[in-house]
């Protein structure tokens, strides 16, 4: 049975001398497919199997065995700038690694559409450090472990003036429930977190850029990363490389 799906390439592993096992993120969730002869074929896949290339994957269910066969692929969008800008190359590796490790279920149209537009936006525009923070926030929302920001995680009271954020508790705490690990946040920072979580179109990011240039915004970046890593419970291998480049001037 043949069928086609839009998909992001997340990873490829060499299988024997000529095949690749490809990991794809599709609206139906993450799937693995065998691209026969892809290590040697010059015509069928060429450069379509690199990280976060957006393709229309033509898949076949084999008569025997469970692994799908990737019969062919059409390019829907090939990110070009990661080839020239080291930060983007590391970031795309980071995104692909996180998506590969943390995607378990199907994505709805809006969620998948956001990823498509997000990748295009980053590819077409100069690098901004906010991209990493936004990805982590949005992906935690999509994956269902976004921080609770409207009421205290423990007593469900709505804090009015003093906000404490607890990474392990998964959101804000009121002044009565705060613990030694919680971090005090301003209402500006809480608003910033809420706005990021609600972003539906990557173009909306530009409105937040200025907020991140303030000291309070910078603190949010490290808080979001710490929250994200704590809840995915794993550190991607590409993260140290990305962090070593973020903040330095562009290389391309």
């Amino acid at each position, binding site marked *: 049975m043949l069928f086609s799906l839009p998909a992001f390439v997340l990873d490829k592993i060499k299988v024997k*001398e000529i095949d690749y096992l490809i990991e794809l993120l599709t609206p139906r969730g993450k799937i693995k497919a065998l691209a026969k002869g892809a290590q040697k074929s010059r015509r069928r896949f060429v450069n379509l199997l690199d990280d976060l290339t957006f393709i229309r994957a033509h898949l076949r269910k084999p008569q025997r065995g469970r692994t799908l066969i990737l019969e062919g692929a059409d390019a829907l969008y090939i990110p070009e700038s990661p*080839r020239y800008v080291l930060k983007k190359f590391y970031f795309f*590796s980071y995104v*692909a690694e996180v998506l590969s490790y943390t995607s378990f279920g199907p994505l709805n149209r809006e969620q998948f559409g956001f990823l498509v537009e997000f990748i295009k936006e980053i590819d077409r525009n100069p690098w901004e450090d906010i991209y990493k923070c936004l990805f982590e926030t949005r992906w935690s929302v999509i994956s269902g472990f976004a921080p609770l920001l409207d009421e205290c995680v423990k007593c469900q009271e709505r804090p009015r003036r003093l906000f404490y954020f607890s990474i392990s508790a998964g959101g804000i705490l009121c002044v009565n429930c705060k613990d030694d690990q919680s971090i005090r946040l301003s209402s500006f920072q809480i608003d910033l977190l809420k706005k990021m979580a609600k972003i539906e179109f990557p173009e909306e990011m530009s409105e937040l850029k200025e907020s991140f240039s303030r000291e309070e915004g910078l603190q949010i970046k490290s808080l979001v990363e710490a929250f994200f890593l704590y809840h995915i419970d794993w550190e991607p291998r590409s993260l140290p*490389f990305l962090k070593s480049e973020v903040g330095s001037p562009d290389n391309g």
Partner: protein
Amino acid sequence: MENFYPPTLKKLIKALSSLPGLGEKSAHRLALFLISKVSLCESLGDLLKELPQRVKLCRICRNFSEDDLCSICQDISRDPSQLCVVENPMNLLQIESAGIYKGYYYVLHYLLAPKEGFGHRELGIDDLIDLIKERSVREVILALSPTLAGEATSSYLATTLENYPVKVTKLACGLPMGMEIQFADYITLKRAFMGREVLKGGSYNG
């Protein structure tokens, strides 16, 4: 059936099947073939034993060599002003066998692969820079595959070498010989257009 095999044969099958590209069936076939070839077994055994001791990396270019310097680095007839950076010794061999380049080489052995833990610090660029200075290289040719990792590595190297008085070039990229345009993706086509060659110069007079 394998349970009836003697332990040494079973061990050999297991060892052979751990080689890249060989499954258990192929390993099985090879092992049974080797049983009847006593002299081949002996020479293979000797070679495999010697391999890690004798074959090492050339001190200058990091190509495989049995001596301190590989045969290419020892060849003084080559053009020292050109240095070709390749990913691995297989690519070096491919360029050498084409007989189109007469300069020296530098083998990276890795491309940037953050997901595997290889970043720019793991590339060993300091040795490359020392080599450029020592040999008074005038042109560095980046001959890395035009994959995402290959291009990212080329861009990184080009940026790193920006402050050194060398010309940095990379292999042309575009439509491969014998390929039909209808199968090319837009990045390949874009590169082909950017790198088009002039067949005849001059201006159009109408």
